[in-house]
């Protein structure tokens, strides 16, 4: 049977190649997802850790276990606590780089042996730290002994800093007034040395902090002997801190879930609960997990259409192959092969083909994964951002499922055919039933379901914002509605097509040329055969279009939005000098600022223009009891560095700026001053800055949108509800504010032509000239958006889908028509015999292509645009819900459309050329002989 199968395959090499192509792509697409997930999530995880570390200035992989006991209250025991802490770290399974244990008695009064400067009492903390001696240099004296001295003293050392701060000298002796050793003898310490840190940046010192300036340190072993142990601990108030520095860079994404649950376990652990602190790693990991879940769901959903299309492609090709093999099957059946044997033969073929496809499919998955990881925009890839591809066990599962689905899709059609005997074959040729989906009105049902989905989602848009804010992913149902809508509309159009043809045919029947007549009639009568290819093309085009629209829209909206919020290419604030010290001392009455040199910005290479912007987010409008952002601008300078789309506001940007410039005291207000605070044009308002200085303004206009302004901000409360805050803004003239308030610190807004490169060079070369307290660079923000796993994954997956779809479209369409023409050679022979010219036959084919291909392209385009307009605004919410300020604009890049339609156009053209070639080489008499078999 295997050899029969191979024989069969060799004879159908084109079909087999198509099946292989479909299988390879299916496996690659399915398997590249887990690959990409692992690699990109790893990148995301380390980015999150780095960001946290940068922002908070701490090493996120720090576990602190602290334990303090009061005299008379010890329960757990320090030894136990230390073991519990060690065990916890073992449980976490992380790589511990450093391990610091510090111990101390409560700070208490100590009486010096020799009184200096009339100080007869000091508060000194006796402390110890494991392995301390390995990390210090003694400047003076000795390392403390690990036993009590013969005269009952505990030897200690002190840091050079503490020596000064505490005024302690080597040789000093102190006796603690209220604490004694366990045998009742007084607790006496002697300072025997002074040390300094070998390297103060070492991890070892991370948990010492300022204590180094206060404490005296004894031998840790001796400390434990003196104060630890069941019999002793009850007598002392003391503490211990165990710090573990672990390497967060070694955490792999697959460990995250386990790590989080281990960390959560500590909170329930009786010994550790409340005493263990994860130093930020828990926050980072939890944030990562939420984000990862969201991204994972989103990316998975985005992939579904292309996977379905691939399966449909396999189904179609398998069906075509069966059509060609109908005679063989009926022959097999008539010669006594059981139905099961026929199915078995095809099943074996499916398994064989899809298994063979694994060999090129998996490496291709790695290529796809690299492509995904390097995508910078839709259909744009940059080698700069490459991704380490790691093969994991996951991909076996995904690849297995791909193979399984492929086997199912390519075997299903066989079941219908396997019952064919020669008799039934003859009968079936005379029957042309309506497709099941038509009888079931599947198109109408799908449209109804998806429209309901659209309706309920659009009604609950705020709900969606809240869900996304609380860390949930894009609701899969939304995307399902989107896909079902495309499918439903595609099916509906495929249902409609025959009616359109019939209508056209009925009207023009009498006047048609023979070739057009034959072609149209053929398309009408054999419509069921074309249904699938038409549907396939419609889906290809519409999914292709919506892919480009989703990708372009999501990224460009995020970028535009960020640009709006940032305000200009570069927004910075310098450190201003002031006389606050004098004001505090009473040497000056009012606070005055010293303005840094502004002219330098105008000389920086790459900076087109610079302007001063007073920007105070903590201003007030006292009469309305609202806080507001006060913005003071130089209108022409501001116009040079910012941009606003005119259609967003009732008036053009220029008009706003002109009216502001016309009166020094003019103010422009955010629209909610009018709608919620009942201010009108012509009103006079008083507003204050954060320092409480007031100014008066005449209201000249209201705006909906203004650079940096967002009317509302959403935030998530701890109880999970979303809070909406109204934001107010007052825009006025910089010159007026300065006149009124004196020199006021301002932000500098720059318009650059080189993405800020010149500026950075300047900052590097002139560190003293630029002392910044704030810097926002639009180019960097943009890069961050593009590099964000969510955006990049979306872009990558949609680009990949798009490419795969185009490929399928080319191959599927070509193979369909080549097969279709091959099966009609006899017919063409008859037509030629009846005197039809070759070019008439070609025209017949062209008309056929118009009825199917062109129809599919046009309707597919229409469906793609319609469905994107309906669903993309909602899908987009999953990406930038909290910061969406600007209204969403659907972005279509004409180059994508050109690409899409050029490829499809080329497909049609190639298809026609190939078909015409087949027709022209077709020998009439040979074609006719075919029928004599």
């Amino acid at each position, binding site marked *: 049977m295997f050899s029969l199968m191979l024989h069969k395959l060799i004879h159908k090499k084109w079909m087999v190649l198509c099946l292989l192509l479909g299988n390879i792509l299916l496996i690659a697409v399915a398997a590249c997802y887990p690959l990409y997930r692992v690699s990109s999530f790893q990148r995301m995880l380390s980015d999150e850790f780095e960001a946290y570390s940068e922002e908070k200035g701490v090493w996120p992989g720090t576990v602190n276990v602290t334990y303090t006991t009061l005299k008379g209250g010890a329960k757990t025991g320090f030894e136990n606590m230390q073991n519990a802490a060690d065990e916890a770290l073992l449980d976490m399974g992380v790589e511990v780089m450093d391990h610091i244990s510090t111990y101390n008695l409560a700070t208490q009064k100590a009486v010096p042996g020799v009184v200096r400067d009339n100080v007869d009492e000091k508060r000194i903390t006796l402390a110890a730290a494991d392995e301390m001696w390995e990390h210090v240099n003694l400047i003076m004296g000795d390392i403390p002994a690990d036993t009590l001295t013969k005269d009952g003293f505990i030897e200690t050392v002190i840091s050079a800093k503490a020596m000064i701060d505490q005024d302690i000298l080597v040789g000093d002796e102190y006796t603690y007034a209220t604490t004694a050793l366990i045998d009742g003898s007084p607790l006496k310490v002697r300072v025997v040395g002074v040390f300094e840190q070998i390297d103060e940046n070492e991890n070892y010192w991370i948990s010492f902090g300022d204590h180094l300036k206060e404490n005296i340190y004894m031998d840790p072993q001796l400390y434990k002997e003196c104060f630890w142990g069941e019999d002793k601990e009850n007598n002392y108030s003391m503490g211990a801190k165990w710090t573990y520095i672990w390497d967060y860079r070694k955490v792999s994404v697959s460990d995250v879930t386990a790590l989080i649950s281990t960390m959560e376990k500590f909170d329930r652990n009786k010994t550790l609960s409340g005493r263990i602190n994860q130093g930020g790693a828990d926050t980072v990991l939890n944030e990562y997990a939420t984000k990862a879940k969201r991204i994972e769901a989103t990316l998975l959903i985005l992939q579904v259409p292309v996977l379905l299309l691939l399966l449909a492609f396999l189904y179609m090709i398998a069906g075509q192959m069966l059509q060609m093999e109908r005679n063989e099957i009926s022959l097999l059946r008539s010669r006594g092969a059981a139905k099961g044997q026929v199915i078995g033969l095809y099943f074996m073929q499916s398994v064989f083909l899809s298994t063979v496809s694994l060999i090129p499919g998996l490496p291709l998955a790695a290529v796809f994964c690299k492509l995904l990881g390097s995508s910078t925009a839709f259909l744009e890839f940059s080698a700069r951002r490459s991704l380490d591809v790691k093969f994991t066990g996951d991909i076996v599962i995904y690849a297995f499922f791909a193979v399984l689905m492929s086997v199912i899709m390519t075997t299903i059609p066989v079941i219908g055919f396997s019952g064919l005997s020669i008799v039934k074959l003859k009968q079936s040729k005379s029957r042309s039933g309506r497709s099941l989906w038509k009888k079931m009105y599947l198109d109408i049902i799908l449209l109804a379901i998806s429209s309901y989905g659209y309706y309920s989602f659009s009604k609950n848009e705020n709900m969606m914002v809240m869900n996304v804010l609380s860390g949930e992913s894009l609701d899969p149902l939304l995307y399902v509605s989107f896909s079902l809508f495309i499918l439903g509309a595609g099916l509906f159009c495929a249902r409609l097509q025959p009616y359109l043809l019939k209508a056209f045919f009925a009207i023009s029947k009498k006047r048609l040329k*023979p070739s057009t007549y034959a072609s149209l009639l053929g398309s009408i009568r054999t419509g069921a055969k074309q249904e699938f290819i038409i549907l396939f093309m419609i889906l290809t085009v519409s999914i292709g279009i919506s892919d480009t629209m989703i990708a372009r829209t999501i990224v460009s909206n995020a970028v535009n939005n960020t640009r709006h919020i940032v305000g200009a290419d570069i927004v910075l604030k310098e450190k201003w000098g002031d006389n606050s010290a004098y004001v505090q001392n009473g040497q000056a009455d009012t606070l005055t600022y010293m303005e840094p040199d502004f002219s330098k910005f105008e000389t920086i290479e790459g900076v087109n223009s610079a302007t001063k912007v007073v920007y105070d987010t903590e201003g007030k409008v006292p009469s309305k009891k609202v806080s507001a952002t006060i913005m003071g601008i130089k209108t022409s300078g501001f116009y040079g560095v910012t941009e606003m789309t005119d259609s967003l506001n009732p008036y053009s940007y220029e008009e706003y700026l002109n009216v502001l410039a016309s009166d020094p005291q003019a103010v422009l207000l955010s629209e909610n001053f009018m709608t919620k605070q009942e201010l009108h044009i012509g009103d006079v308002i008083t507003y204050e800055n954060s320092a409480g200085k007031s100014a008066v303004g005449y209201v000249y206009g209201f705006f909906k949108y203004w650079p940096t302004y967002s009317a509302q901000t959403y935030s998530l409360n701890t109880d999970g509800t979303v809070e909406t805050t109204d934001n107010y803004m007052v825009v006025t003239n910089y010159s007026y504010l300065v006149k009124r308030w004196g020199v006021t610190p301002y932000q500098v807004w720059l318009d650059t032509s080189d993405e800020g490169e010149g500026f950075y060079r300047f900052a590097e070369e002139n560190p003293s000239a630029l002392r910044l307290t704030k810097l926002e660079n639009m180019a960097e923000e943009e890069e961050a958006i593009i590099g964000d796993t969510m955006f990049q994954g979306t872009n990558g997956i949609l680009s990949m889908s798009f490419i795969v779809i185009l490929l399928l479209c080319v191959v599927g369409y070509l193979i369909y028509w080549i097969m279709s023409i091959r099966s009609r050679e006899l017919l063409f022979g008859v037509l030629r015999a009846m005197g039809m010219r070759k070019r008439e036959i070609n025209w017949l084919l062209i008309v056929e292509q118009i009825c199917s291909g062109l129809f599919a392209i046009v309707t597919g385009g229409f469906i793609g645009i319609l469905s994107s307009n309906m669903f993309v605004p909602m899908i987009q919410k999953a990406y930038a819900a909290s910061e969406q300020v600007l209204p969403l604009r659907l972005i279509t890049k004409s180059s994508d459309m050109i690409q899409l339609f050029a490829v499809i156009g080329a497909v049609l053209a190639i298809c026609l050329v190939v078909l015409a070639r087949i027709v022209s080489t077709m020998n009439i008499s040979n074609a006719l002989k075919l029928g004599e078999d």
Partner: protein
Amino acid sequence: MSEIILETKNVKRVFPVAGSDPFTAVDDVSIKVPKGSLCILKGRSGSGKTTLLNMLGALDYPTSGEIIFDGTDITKLNENSREKLRRNQVGFVFQSVSLIPMMSAYENVEFALRMANIKENRGPRVEECLKMVGLGARMNHMPQEMSGGEQQRVAIARAVAHHPAIIFADEPTAELDSQTAINVMNLFKEMVTKENVTIIMTTHDTSLMGAGDVVYELEDGKLI
């Protein structure tokens, strides 16, 4: 003898055979077919009769020789004129399914009229032809819904519909039972008289020979 409508002079057709000597399918055949006759080309399978018929019907070119149709050597005509000839002057009936599968019986016949660019009174002529072949009641049936004999009768109706001067029929009875075959032959004879058309058909069935006005027999590509 009446007027000669079709004449061949030393027609020869050689097919190149890959890796072997060329094969001569028709060798030096000269025949004359009078107008308004039923001419039968007889011979066993592989005797070259179909090849000869294809050349006569301007579907194929002879390697050498002349084919004179109504005073014109059609071997000298260009493809365009031959196509025109086929659509206006000639009708074909083939051995097996030669109907256009997506057209009904009526549409198949009408299509021949469309091809010949006949615009007037198409409907009545189609009905007339179908009634003539005894299928007046099944005009709107699709080919798949008809028996082999019925399909062949539709093909005959189609071949005659546009008033061709000559009809070529390649083994029109080969797939039919003897009863039906005789009916088809009778139909041909009827056409010859009623429509004043010339019919050239091939057959290997010796029992039908008697029906022919002119009979040529071929063996290994040669007339005997």
